[in-house]
């Protein structure tokens, strides 16, 4: 039994990009002729008509893609926002953007006292925040989205709860942003 068609299928499954016969042959340490043959066998299997995934030949080579029969279900599945619980880092970044928007990534990092790339990236990817122009120094600014308001059950940003209840120093006067930055600087140096 020849494993090559199986291996080729696995590579096509994993790769986000179409694969050329040459690339596949290199990865499998096989001849291009053998790969062409393996692809032909795969094509047969995929052509049987019961599959939800199809083998396509496009400009750059071969790739697997979903059959249009699944499009409606796919949209229902994937268009629904994913809402795993927020980690502490994500919640802090989300709070900073929600209360101080528009706010830049360096500013978020300064307030938290730690680099916040990955948390901000996740919030962007989940559609909770979005870009909103650039600061005078050229840094990308972020603001919260409609989706954010929906997922937190808010009708507007003015419905955000008062921070004072969780503020350890309510008697202190001053701008929220400034005080956050000050605390952040101390955290960063701690």
């Amino acid at each position, binding site marked *: 039994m020849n494993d090559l068609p199986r291996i080729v299928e696995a590579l096509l499954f994993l790769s986000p990009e179409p694969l050329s016969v040459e690339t596949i042959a290199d990865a499998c340490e096989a001849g291009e002729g053998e790969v062409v043959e393996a692809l032909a066998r795969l094509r047969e299997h995929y052509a049987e008509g019961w599959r939800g995934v199809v083998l396509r030949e496009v400009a750059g080579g071969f790739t697997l893609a979903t059959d249009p029969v699944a499009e409606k279900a796919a949209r229902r599945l994937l268009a629904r926002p994913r809402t795993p619980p927020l980690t502490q880092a994500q919640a802090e970044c989300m*709070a900073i953007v929600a209360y101080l928007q528009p706010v830049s990534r360096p500013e978020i990092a300064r307030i938290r006292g730690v680099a916040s790339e990955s948390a901000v990236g996740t919030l962007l990817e989940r559609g909770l925040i979005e870009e909103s122009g650039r600061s005078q120094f050229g840094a990308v600014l972020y603001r919260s989205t409609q989706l954010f308001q929906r997922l937190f059950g808010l009708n507007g940003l003015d419905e955000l709860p008062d921070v004072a209840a969780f503020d350890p120093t309510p008697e202190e006067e001053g701008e929220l942003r400034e005080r956050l930055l000050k605390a952040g600087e101390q955290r960063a140096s701690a």
Partner: protein
Amino acid sequence: MAVLSLDLDLEVFQGPFDLLLTLVLKEEVDLLEVDLADVVLAYVEHLEGSGELDLEATTEFLVLIAALLELKSRLILPREEDEEIDLDRAEAADELLARMLEYARYRRAATFLRERIEAESGFRYRSAPLPEELRRVSVDLAEKSYEPVTLAKALGGLLRMPEPISLHHVAMPTVSVEQRLGHLRALLSGRGRFTFDEAVEGADRVTVAVTLFALLELYKKGEATWEQSESFGPIVVNAR
């Protein structure tokens, strides 16, 4: 070299480490009389001699020595006066064994997990971006999933000023056990009785700690005893 065969040459005991453990477990050697600092020194010497650091063996050693230290400190400071020390000792030996067994349990569980992740490593999952037409998330399908109050809490937490950094511990300790021993002996011969607070009046934390250590040494040598009528109450030291 296995930790258990580490050779020890102590005042009350000569032989390998595992024998010492055995004798402590059998209560044939009084843990109170074993100088654990010497055990640690012997191990450090052995490490220096062998020139390499066996992490597994060192971990094992640390687990054992930590358990012994905890036991010993409990023996030195009985919680209630009328409590039988012998009872404590038997309990303590059981606890040492129990702790070794608990660690053994998770060591074995760790082996299981390592084998498992190894066996699974051949399976790869796809992590390709979604096709363009499926990338838009629909706001209409979104339902309330998070509590707004978590945001206020997160932001409020960020307003908290961290403690200023203390550079206190950077200063080199200049006080030795010998010095504090001298200080305590002077107090003992002068008055025969004093409180711990008096002994460390105005001293910094390191000095307080070293003084406590010196006091334990005096007790061990039979020069002093102490009493404390209630938790956190004054500690009265008496010449023996």
